[in-house]
């Protein structure tokens, strides 16, 4: 597939990247590993006039561990992060979700920043332009109809990062840099809840770093996919626990990961959160698996996680 025409720039500092974006406002995209963006450009889901490559910004390439945070540059690859000793030893939910992301070759190219900021996906959206034109453009493409749910007035595309749910259970924060300076917010706050425009980032804002509290946690991540070798999650469930306080997050369904707090000392906590999670998700017929099955699998995955965390196997 041939790419459409665009200009390619590789700034060495964040300030320059922000300036380039502002100079081409509305028409520029940021590139990192390219495993999400390049297929989107090929399928004409993005039509940039300029692609700004962030890979040469060296301040985004490091992992630093301090007493209170694990600070991860947005350009750090999934593979690099999953092999980091602190992640392996202390953040099992994240170690699992990184391992479950795509396949090894893509893990070596894809970055954590890009993974978190990947666009939402739908069976009727991630298609070639010819396919979409023949079907009629949907709401996410600026059309008037939803091709997945007849008569729907809103978009139901799924946010399919494996790592964002795991990071949310770890109370992760993200640092964003824009023309007006930088700000640090909880990861859960970057989601708009709208599938057609999933993020609350300002135009041109760059996610520069991810901050995970440097605590020892227990946890795990499980996902449902058709091909174990590569696929995006059709349901993903992550949980982390610290001193009896836990957080569960469900991904792969709807515009953003849903998260639920729980207390390990409460009687019947496992059954309660499994039921609560399954009752809150609203899958629709926009993946290769049916919505009924995916809803049931939320309950099943959470119960498997609960058994694992309670030391009863999986």
């Amino acid at each position, binding site marked *: *597939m*041939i*790419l*459409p*025409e*665009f*200009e*390619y720039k*590789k700034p060495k500092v964040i300030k320059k990247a922000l300036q380039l974006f502002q100079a081409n406002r509305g028409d520029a995209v940021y*590139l990192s590993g*390219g*495993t999400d963006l*390049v*297929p989107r450009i*090929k*399928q004409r889901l993005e039509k940039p006039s300029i*692609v700004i*490559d962030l*890979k040469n910004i060296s301040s985004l390439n490091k992992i630093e561990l301090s007493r209170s945070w694990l600070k991860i540059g947005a350009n750090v690859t999934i593979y690099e992060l999953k092999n980091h000793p602190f992640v392996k030893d202390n953040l099992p939910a994240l170690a699992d979700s990184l391992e479950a992301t795509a*396949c*090894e*070759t*893509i893990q*070596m*190219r894809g970055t954590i920043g890009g993974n978190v900021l990947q666009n939402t996906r739908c069976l009727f959206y991630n298609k070639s332009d010819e396919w979409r034109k023949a079907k009629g453009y949907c709401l996410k493409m600026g059309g008037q109809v939803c091709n997945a749910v007849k008569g729907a007035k809103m978009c139901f595309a799924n946010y399919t990062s494996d790592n964002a749910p795991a990071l949310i259970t770890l109370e992760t924060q993200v640092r964003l840099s824009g023309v007006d300076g930088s700000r640090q917010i909880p990861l859960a706050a970057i989601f708009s809840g709208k599938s057609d425009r999933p993020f609350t980032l300002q135009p041109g804002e760059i996610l520069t770093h991810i901050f995970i509290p440097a605590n020892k946690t227990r946890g795990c991540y499980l996902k449902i996919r058709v091909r*174990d*070798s*590569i696929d995006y999650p059709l349901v993903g469930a992550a949980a982390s626990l610290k001193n009896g306080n836990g957080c569960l997050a469900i991904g792969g369904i709807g515009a953003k990961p849903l998260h639920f707090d729980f207390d390990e000392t409460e009687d019947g906590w496992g059954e309660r959160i499994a039921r609560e999670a399954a009752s809150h998700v609203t899958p629709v017929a926009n993946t290769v698996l049916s919505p009924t099955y995916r809803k049931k699998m939320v309950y099943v995955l959470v119960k498997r996680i609960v058994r694992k965390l309670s030391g009863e196997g999986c």
Partner: protein
Amino acid sequence: MKRVKVNFTVNGEKVSVEVKQYETLLETLRERLCLTGVKESCSIGSCGACTVILDGIPVRSCLVLSPEVEGKSITTVEGLEKNGILHPLQQAFMEKGAVQCGFCTSGMILTAKSLLDRQSKPSKDQIIRTISSNICRCTGYKKIIEAVMSAAEKMVAT
């Protein structure tokens, strides 16, 4: 639109190529450098047929823009043979019958090579995990895995 000059190393040889800014590495290798061992299949990063090794890391060349590889070093399947002698992986793929239609083969071999470069004695599970980055639609995975194991043994022995 203005073309850009990109300098990089392919199979040990320095090259300087004028490319479109929106050209993929896959196109540059195949169309400008005639390295047709790099195969285009899905073109969206799912299949791994276009895998090349970029600074020691296997990448899908359909997802890499050519201007990104300035100053970098690339190995394609054409670069594995040395003085008329095939790489142990190439030899093992032939001996074990790990090639059916052959379209995935160069990607498979390069993905396997990057694993053997990182780890000289991988377990069967590690080989399966790495090789699962690449799709073979003839479904000949068993022989591919056997070939990688056999090549690994030979490379350790020599």
